[in-house]
């Protein structure tokens, strides 16, 4: 039983990370109507910035994180304005190809700038475990869960109660009418990309202490985030987070208790989740069925 609870908690921790990155995917999907295949590489790039600031320049963790988040926001905004905005009215294929170009470009750039060697990034949380009724829970896991849930709540409040949040929702739901009431749509879609990149940076910073930092760090996480977003419904922010947590716990239990799956088949298991959801309930758990008029 204690082992089971421990697996659930560590599953929640990795699920929180999947949820954060899935939320980034959902934000961009709502803003631009595409899936950003470069989301993982962008997150890794942000993590490298964090690493450079803390290790090379000796900054303390929290100011370094704040600066990293600011740079990530600017970077995401810039990427949207520079390369996504010109093609976003065209076919989906073209936008997807542009994000794949970004994936290759950013991945290569990281290897170029920081070389392919693995780096270690410190965690802001202590690695000690605390005892909760016989269950040893690491503070790092608790911190990860706390940060991801906190971020989601903050983001929800931002969308609900601020003017920019309202304008963002308007721009994503109905660009033409939003423009009529004076919302600067392209600029706000850029803000959406910036926010998504910030979320990615948080996911990257939470991932890096448990694995090592290398240019391909977020590739597997991105697949899990895809699965989480699809599971929760690609247009639902709440769904992304719930999907992430469900997937994290589910994969962890599957890996522990089903010998055949073990550690090697976690990725294919996530893949089957994607396929099964797309086939049997394409809208996901919380999403809306899209009705298109022709």
């Amino acid at each position, binding site marked *: 039983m204690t082992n089971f609870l421990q697996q659930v908690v560590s599953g929640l921790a990795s699920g929180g990370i999947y949820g954060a990155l899935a939320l980034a995917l959902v934000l961009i999907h709502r803003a631009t109507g595409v*899936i950003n295949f470069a989301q993982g590489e962008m997150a890794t790039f942000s993590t490298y910035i964090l690493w450079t600031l803390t290790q090379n320049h000796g900054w303390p963790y929290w100011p370094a994180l704040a600066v990293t988040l600011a740079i990530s926001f600017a970077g995401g905004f810039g990427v949207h304005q520079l390369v996504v905005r*010109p093609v976003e009215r065209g076919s989906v294929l*073209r936008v997807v190809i542009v994000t794949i170009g970004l994936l290759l470009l950013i991945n290569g750039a*990281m*290897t170029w700038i920081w070389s392919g060697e693995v780096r270690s990034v410190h965690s802001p949380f202590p690695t000690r475990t605390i005892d909760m009724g016989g269950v040893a829970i690491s503070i790092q896991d608790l911190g990860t869960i706390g940060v991801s849930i906190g971020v989601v709540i903050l983001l929800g409040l931002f969308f609900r109660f601020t003017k920019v949040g309202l304008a963002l929702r308007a721009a994503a739901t109905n660009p033409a009418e939003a423009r009529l009431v004076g919302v600067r749509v392209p600029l706000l879609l850029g803000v959406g990309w910036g926010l998504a990149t910030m979320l990615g940076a948080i996911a990257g910073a939470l991932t890096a202490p448990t694995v090592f930092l290398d240019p391909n760090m977020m590739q597997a996480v991105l697949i899990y985030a895809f699965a989480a977003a*699809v599971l929760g419904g690609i247009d639902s922010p709440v769904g992304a987070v719930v999907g992430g947590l469900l997937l994290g716990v589910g994969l962890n239990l599957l890996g522990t208790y089903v010998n055949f799956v073990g550690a*090697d088949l976690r990725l294919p298991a996530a893949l089957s989740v994607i396929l099964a959801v797309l086939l049997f309930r394409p809208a996901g758990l919380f999403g809306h069925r899209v009705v298109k008029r022709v």
Partner: protein
Amino acid sequence: MRRTATSAGLFAALVVAIAVLPKFLTDFRAQQFAYVAVYLVALIGLNVLTGYTGQMSLGHGAFMAVGGYTTAILMTDHGIKDLWTIPAAAVVAGAAGFLFGLPALRLTGLYLALATFAIAVATPAVIKKFEGFTGGGSGKNLFGVKELTGGIAPVHVLGWKLNFNNWLYYLCWTVALVLYVVAWLLLRGRTGRAFRAVRDSETAALSSGVSLARYKTLAFGVSAAYAGVAGSLFAIATTYVNPDTFPVQLSIFLLVGVVVGGLGSLTGLIAGAIFIEFLPLWAQDISKSPGAPGVVYGVILIGVIFLLPTGAAGLLRRVASLFRGR
């Protein structure tokens, strides 16, 4: 009629050029050009699906893996000669593609890209898991059985003695050119029209009596069969397969090749195949860093989408119409 004659003439010139090219190449270059033919086969397959039928695939490396492993397993475990494994690879990969095409009918655009991408990412892990069948992480060696392959020794073909790389060159290009003609015949007629109708508007295609299910699964099957042949040739060329022979990057590079060559065109794909094979080498001139090819690929991919959405084929057409205009 005149256009067909011109195309046939140009194609004959291409065949002659390819036939005499090894005379001017070093052994190493001949091998590189053999890989160009392998990529060409895979690109034709991907273009049938993505360029002509409008179904995006980011997972064609997985179908290449199916073909490559069919060849490797048939050769090492069942003692079948390398040439005969090529049609087998086409059949097995084609069947896999057809079967994947059935659930894929429910997925459109973005979701299909996602599902195929996930397959490409998961393939190496699945190959490693079924160790008894695929040889696991250590892979399978093909040159262990000398009498089954051209191997390291010279090969006798129709009274000619060819060294391994030249034999590889002629094998790959023969297969590629035959499959090129097959694709051309398939796409110019009724089937090709149906494919393009599905791509341009599913609703319009459906209302003119084109069965979406039939033509989409057909496109998946044909496309995967091509990828299977490419994977089989790839295995024969490298004489070795392991799970990392077919990484997710391969699938992405194939998409890059199709976009650079020109979506919905066959001629441009030769440029796309040359691009995939030689770009990593050209990138070395810019920087020795292992990240350089990725950066160059990315920049060119985005640049092509912005400046040249119809790829090399579109550029070619524009130049040709310039001459015809006089």
